[in-house]
């Protein structure tokens, strides 16, 4: 079914009168979706498009994401689909390049007429695809990047950020670190926009939790030489280390730290299994690695154990963070859509905005004030690892309201308020 593009003027006319989403106080009137018309409507199939990196530097996460997405679609069709409609899933490879991610998202809207978009992308690409959703009036759920400014700044009512913000993770991690190990913290973060956000949030939350930052280290994103920083850590001799690298930087640092015999506990802001596995299983015998995370297979809800067993039986491996995020964030959106009456873009947006309920990892609700999903956080430790599997254990569970900035705290900062 080929969807002809409505001109911008028609879309503005349509949404202008629609009462659902009125935008006040936004700097430019770019808030409403424009460009081609929204997706959805028409025949009896509910289409979900996923744009995620399959090739390129992050392709190590691709299997987890694809397997989880396919399982989700099958599960929903087994349960009777969305609003009784069969669910059809489409996924596209973003090749870790913004120009490709944007065109693939646009193609999903133009050629496949998807009713909803989900993304699992890097910081470079996600801004562009969220923009595609906003302009075309297609509800878009991002499952990966935590960059705080993603939704607020663009006042894009069609976008929903499922992953926690850097601030939420920092709050959970800082509280955990200070209780478990003490107040003196050394911060080591990547030197680019997102890295600075991580550092600022952790510093603030560490101080709120009664800790002090003894020293800060910076290295550029692709850094692979941490010897100068390891030396600085030895001098500072902190209680624990706040570490903000996710990619090959994490591998390089953990190897270097192990090599120079530093066994100070490390709190990784984000730890994707395929990446930290790169440091080799022996690293985890000597160094204690923790991470404030939103998902680990060790979460002991009944639905999660069922998901973990089925995932392991189908793929032969335990679901990693990427699989958990992909599955449960899109599941939440599908549950919201199932509860809505109709699949028009604005009906879906209002359904998702107010949805709360249970997903595989337990309690989950979407906040209408800033389109941010909220759910409990966990402090997970790496017990051990073998060549292709990381074994987590949940140390603490932290309820959402303890870590998530409240609505007025956030909306005060946001340029546009979404009623």
């Amino acid at each position: 079914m080929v969807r002809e593009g409505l001109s911008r003027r028609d879309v503005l006319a349509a949404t202008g009168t629609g009462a659902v989403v009125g935008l006040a106080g936004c700097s430019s009137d770019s808030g409403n979706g424009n460009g081609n018309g929204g997706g959805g409507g028409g025949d009896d199939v509910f289409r979900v498009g996923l744009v995620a990196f399959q090739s390129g530097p992050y392709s190590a996460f691709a299997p987890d994401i694809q397997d989880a997405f396919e399982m989700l679609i099958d599960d929903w069709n087994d349960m009777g689909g969305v609003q009784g409609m069969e669910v059809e899933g489409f996924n596209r490879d973003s090749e870790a390049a913004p120009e490709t991610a944007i065109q693939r998202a646009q193609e999903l809207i133009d050629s496949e007429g998807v009713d909803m978009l989900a993304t699992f992308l890097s910081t470079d690409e996600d801004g562009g695809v969220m923009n595609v959703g906003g302009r075309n009036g297609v509800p878009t759920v991002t499952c990966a990047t935590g960059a705080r400014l993603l939704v607020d700044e663009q006042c894009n009512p069609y976008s929903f950020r499922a992953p926690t913000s850097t601030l939420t993770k920092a709050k959970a991690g800082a509280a955990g670190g200070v209780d478990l190990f003490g107040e003196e913290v050394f911060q080591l973060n990547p030197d680019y926009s997102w890295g600075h956000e991580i550092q600022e949030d952790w510093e603030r939350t560490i101080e709120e939790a009664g800790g002090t930052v003894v020293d800060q280290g910076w290295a550029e994103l692709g850094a692979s030489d941490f010897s100068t920083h390891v030396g600085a850590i030895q001098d500072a001799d902190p209680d624990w280390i706040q570490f903000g690298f996710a990619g090959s930087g994490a591998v390089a640092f953990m190897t270097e730290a192990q090599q120079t015999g530093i066994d100070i506990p490390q709190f990784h802001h984000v730890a994707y299994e395929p990446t930290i596995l790169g440091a080799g299983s022996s690293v985890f015998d000597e160094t204690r690695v923790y991470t404030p995370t939103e998902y680990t297979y060790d979460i002991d809800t009944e639905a999660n154990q069922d998901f973990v067993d089925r995932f392991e039986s189908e793929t032969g491996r335990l679901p990693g963070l990427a699989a958990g995020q992909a599955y449960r964030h899109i599941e939440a959106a599908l549950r919201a859509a199932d509860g809505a009456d109709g699949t028009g873009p604005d009906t879906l947006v209002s359904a998702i905005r107010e949805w709360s309920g249970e997903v595989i990892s337990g309690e989950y609700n979407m906040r209408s004030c800033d389109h941010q999903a909220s759910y409990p956080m966990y402090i997970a430790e790496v017990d051990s690892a073998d060549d292709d599997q990381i074994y987590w254990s949940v140390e603490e569970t932290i309820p959402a309201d303890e870590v998530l900035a409240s609505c007025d705290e956030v909306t005060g900062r946001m340029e546009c308020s979404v009623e």
Partner: protein
Amino acid sequence: MVLPHNTLLQISVDGIVQGLYSGISFGMILVLTAAGLTLIFGLMGVVNFAHGELYAAGAYAGFVLFGVTGNFAVAVVAAVIAGFAIGAIMEVSIIRPLYDREPLYQLAVTFGAAIILIELIEVIIGPQSQPFPIPDLLSGSIAVAGYTFGTYRIFLIVAGGILVTALWLFLTKSKYGLIIRAAIFDTEMVESMGYDVNRAYTFIFGLGAAYAAIAGVLVAPLFGLFPEMGAEIIILIFVVVVVGGLGSFKGVIVAGLLIGIAQSFGQIYVPWAAEAIPFVLMVAVILYRPQGLFGVEGVFTE
């Protein structure tokens, strides 16, 4: 970009020692790789854009062998053989047909080769970053006058020094080295003396590639392996070769160490600009001496 408030704290003696130490060890990696590129260019006028991938191929070949045998020496030998083989195959298959053509075509064809090699690594080994465990006898660290130095980096500096000197001696003193250099000067004359010049070219290309491969396997334990490691290093290698003076051996050694040290000091004192330092250094050198610090005037500027 605000400076971290404790920069002053860091400008202490151990900061300088630390900066020098890691700067020289990383610099040695740059020297080894750039020496390979300069060797090929200096003698054959060919710049190999896929030189970074040979660096990566060496690292991955070493990684596979180390996984099988667990012996680091075997891994290094494997890297050398892999590098030499791929380099030789490249010269015979895609560089040789282009000798009579414009040098820019050789650069263009090696750009295609770089794309192929990156994809092949991803197909054969896989896309995710891999660790290269540090061999036991080289792990741990030594305390000297109060400063701790990782033994592996010391090994790196020593090994790098030996390898670079060996290459220089081979080219300037050994019989075969002299024949190769003569072959460049006057191909017909050397051919008439019964040496197969084509074999000399294949050998040079292989040797240059082997040096990149050695650098790759030596650095792997520190930085780990990922398919794009070659693409990231080649840009820095170009800067080293441009600053040192293309085709000049002495230039590569000085420029490689200089940039290694500058970048590591940058990481300590001016982290927000660390990545840009090599490029700023390069622009300064080019404006001052277009042929680079030790480049031969006229080869590339007149």
